[in-house]
């Protein structure tokens, strides 16, 4: 193998598993260390720079970082990254003075942003400090989009949304609430330099079975729309028997909300087995903990409506399997079941619709009704129009919407400055030795054996009394510190300098996880097999040094390295050094 090029920022970035997995590439270990040091405001700002909504994401993020966490590969459970994020939001001081200054003299460009969800607000946040003038249009009365309308308050209190959307609106965005854009053509005629569409994926899918017409949209409702009505307090109670159809997070939100609005008998019905549910495991656990039954392998057949009143729903029991080509097969068993209900909430996916974008504006659409959008630049086929969030590629999650908002903001900035959009700016990186003295590091190199901490919940009886009472209490300072200490500091990289190495074996002898080997060089597959413990996790890179004096190379398997620094501590010549690698994802900058 060729010697590893650690100058390529992506090599060390990939070692920081959590940050690499995060769509917005938030420098996770950096803010976790700040939490451990009690510097909550600084930790909050690292998050805010990167993911814009730390308080919101600290409660609701899909947390792709956690399955990626290295701790999960050596210990049972990853670091509770998401809940630590909430800690810095909960415990910070007033951070207003740390927010970027908005220039009084504008740069002359005027943007329209449609929608006030995570991607739209991210574009505004990124471009306001550069002097853009921004008009923002939102159909409802408040900012937040999906975050406000479809995530129930018991998971995400409205104050948190108000605070974090407020930081952006207060930058001087010309926000027009209760203003639904009905015609893209009319909007574009107003002469905006660019338009960003962040309208989300507002429509949930209907399920038109026999009986649907008889109900006439009264008691068979699309879950996300129902959740929005609850959020805006248009719906304050539910009938006794409620059925939720679907196995995603929205289904979990629907059933738990229904329980809080007075339903006595809430059931979740799935076409699939529970094992095939797409909801996050922790959401399923929380739902079951509240005593809501989840019935599997029930395929809906009919709404039973008598005298205009929904009475029950008929299901066919199916046998679920996956065929050779990986497709789901729902084989009827011939058995049927009728379940009483007065309200059905459909949470079977969301559909996109852009009836308000005229088809003659140069914005091309795909067969499934989405605009054709470049997945790197987020530009549509009309170069002035950009898409992001769920409006771009369909329903994903908040952190993806934020990441797409960043990319769209970069593109808009480059587009208006006449630059090639495909030549994306580089990330900024910094590599700094953590050596404080002989055998001393400026980070906590000891690896704690502390187990993952659970977030305390309020009492169940109290929880289901109100849909506004937040269920999770968040970590206190002591628990946060203990959980923060579990972070392995993967961003403190093991940096090897081949010409300093005297091949004394000290690092190899001390390495607790046997990830280092001196060996003769060969092709990657063979090299991986030849290591002291073979490097079988192909998802993790191996580092190969330049040739050493004996002709061998130093090979490091990054897979389970604990970043404990013992190799560098036992190295007599400092050929190994522990250096902190800070990777800041690219963003639009003042030039």
């Amino acid at each position, binding site marked *: 193998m060729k010697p590893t090029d650690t100058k390529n920022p992506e090599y060390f970035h990939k070692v920081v598993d959590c940050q690499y997995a995060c769509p917005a590439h938030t420098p996770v270990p950096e803010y976790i260390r700040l939490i451990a040091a009690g510097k909550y405001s600084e930790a909050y700002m690292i998050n805010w720079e990167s993911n814009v909504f730390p308080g919101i994401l600290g409660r609701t993020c899909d947390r792709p970082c956690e399955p990626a966490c290295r701790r999960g*590969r*050596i*210990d049972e459970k990853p670091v509770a990254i998401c809940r630590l994020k909430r800690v810095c939001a909960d415990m910070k001081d007033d951070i207003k003075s740390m927010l970027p200054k908005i220039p009084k003299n504008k740069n002359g460009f005027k943007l329209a942003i449609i929608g006030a969800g995570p991607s739209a607000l991210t574009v505004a946040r990124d471009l306001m400090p550069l002097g853009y003038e921004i008009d923002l249009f939102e159909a409802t009365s408040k900012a937040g989009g999906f975050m406000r309308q479809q995530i129930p308050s018991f998971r995400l209190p409205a104050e948190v949304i108000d605070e974090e959307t407020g930081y952006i609106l207060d930058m001087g965005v010309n926000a027009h609430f209760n203003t639904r854009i009905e015609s893209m053509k009319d909007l574009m005629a107003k002469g905006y330099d660019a338009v960003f569409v962040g309208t989300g994926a507002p429509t949930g899918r209907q399920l038109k079975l026999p009986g649907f017409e008889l109900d006439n949209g009264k008691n068979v409702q699309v879950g996300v729309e129902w959740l929005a009505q609850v959020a805006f307090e248009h719906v304050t109670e539910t009938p006794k028997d409620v059925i939720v159809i679907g196995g995603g997070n929205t289904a979990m939100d629907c059933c738990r909300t229904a329980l809080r609005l007075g339903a006595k008998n809430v059931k979740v019905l799935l076409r699939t087995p529970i094992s095939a549910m797409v909801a996050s495991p922790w959401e399923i656990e929380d739902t079951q903990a509240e005593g809501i039954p989840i019935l599997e392998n029930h395929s809906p057949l009919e709404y039973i409506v008598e005298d205009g009143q929904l009475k029950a729903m008929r299901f066919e029991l199916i046998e679920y399997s996956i065929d050779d080509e990986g497709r789901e097969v729902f084989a009827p068993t011939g058995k049927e079941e009728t379940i009483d209900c007065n309200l059905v909430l459909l949470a079977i996916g969301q559909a996109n619709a852009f009836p308000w974008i005229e088809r003659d504006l140069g914005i091309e659409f795909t067969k499934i009704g989405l605009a054709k959008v470049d997945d790197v630049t987020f530009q549509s086929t009309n170069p002035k129009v950009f898409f992001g969030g769920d409006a771009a590629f369909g329903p994903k999650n908040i952190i993806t919407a934020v990441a797409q908002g960043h990319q769209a903001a970069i593109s808009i900035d480059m587009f208006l400055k006449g630059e090639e959009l495909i030549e994306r700016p580089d990330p900024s990186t910094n590599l700094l030795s953590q050596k404080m003295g*002989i*055998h*001393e590091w400026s980070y906590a*190199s*000891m*690896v704690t*054996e502390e187990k993952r901490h659970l977030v305390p919940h309020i009492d169940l009886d109290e929880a289901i009394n109100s849909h506004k009472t937040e269920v999770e209490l968040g970590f206190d300072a002591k628990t946060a510190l203990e959980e923060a200490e579990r972070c392995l500091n993967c961003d403190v990289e093991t940096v090897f300098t081949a010409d300093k190495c*005297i*091949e*004394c*074996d*000290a690092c*190899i*002898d*001390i390495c*607790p*996880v*046997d*990830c280092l080997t001196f060996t003769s060089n060969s092709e990657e597959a063979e090299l991986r097999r030849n290591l002291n*413990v*073979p490097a*079988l996790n192909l998802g993790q890179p191996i580092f190969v040094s330049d040739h050493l*004096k*004996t002709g061998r190379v130093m090979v490091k398997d990054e897979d*389970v390295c*604990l970043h*404990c*620094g*013992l190799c560098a*501590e*036992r*190295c*007599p*010549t400092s050929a190994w050094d522990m250096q902190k690698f800070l990777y800041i994802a690219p963003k639009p900058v003042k030039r």
Partner: protein
Amino acid sequence: MSYKIPTFRHPNLPKNDLGYTSKDYEGAVSTLCAGCGHDSISAAIIDAVFEMSIPPHRVAKLSGIGCSSKTPTYFLGNSHGFNSVHGRMPSVATGANMANRDLLYIGVSGDGDTASIGMGQFVHAVRRNVNMVYICENNGVYGLTKGQDSATTDIGSTSKKGEPNALEPIDLCSIALQLGATFVANSFSGDKDQLVPIIQAAIAHKGFAFINVISPCVTFNNVPGSTKAYDYIRQHMASTNTVDYVPFAEEITAEFEEGTDEKVTMHDGSIINLHKLEMKHDIHSRRSALKLVQEYKAQDKVVTGILFMDEHSQEIHETMNTAKRPLRDLGTKELCPGAASLEELNNLHR
């Protein structure tokens, strides 16, 4: 400074026949200087004992005083240990071995502990053919007293401070050979591929197995003028043979080359597969081994590998016709057979 190693280990760490991983053979974190050759030897001992699936509680590690003699703390943390007086490890090992012949005895010593203060002890352990592995971690310097030349420092070799050494060095392998040692090897701490199978062969050997391991002192004796520095040894090392240790009942998978390979069957049925690089040398000939050491020395080279072995050697228990079982397994009747038995014994010699 870290005083503790994280407890996490690689999830795919191999297990030996006893179901142990190498972690079960580790000791405390070394407090020696970073990069000390001795730590590599500790690691080689761990590897050797782990691979041979020796239960840790069947091993006794013994040492004297010095940097080298501190190392038993850093390996085989679940084994028996005895840190004796400076240079007196051979006596303690001999006594322990006399009392319990069933344990594996690994003595660790240094050039000061062996070639200076302990020379009088060392030579008698060799002479008696005590059944043990004796590893001399030889760095040619008194590290613990801050870098004076030792009795094994070569003429003209310089350490970090001071004059080139003017006195003739003691060659421990030659001395062991001359005293009738039944297994003599020379190796280098920086070459585990060679050292681990040599330690395994020494463990399989019945009788006194002496391994001199050149082990650079990074703090005082890893300088350009030293003949025991990493660079010097790497440039001047010449192997007489490479070794594969094949445990009893395991199929020999190493390639056997006619003419250059030699199989030696040990008393426990295990096999030492020697790949001879120096064709003139016969490892069963003491004279050939002595000649080899001298010839290489004359060329400024350090010869490594197994220099001599006598797999049919008679260890001290056999020579003395002692009890076949450890003393602790004998009853009072056998240990104190009474006045009549003593009288009978005395009469034999009247």
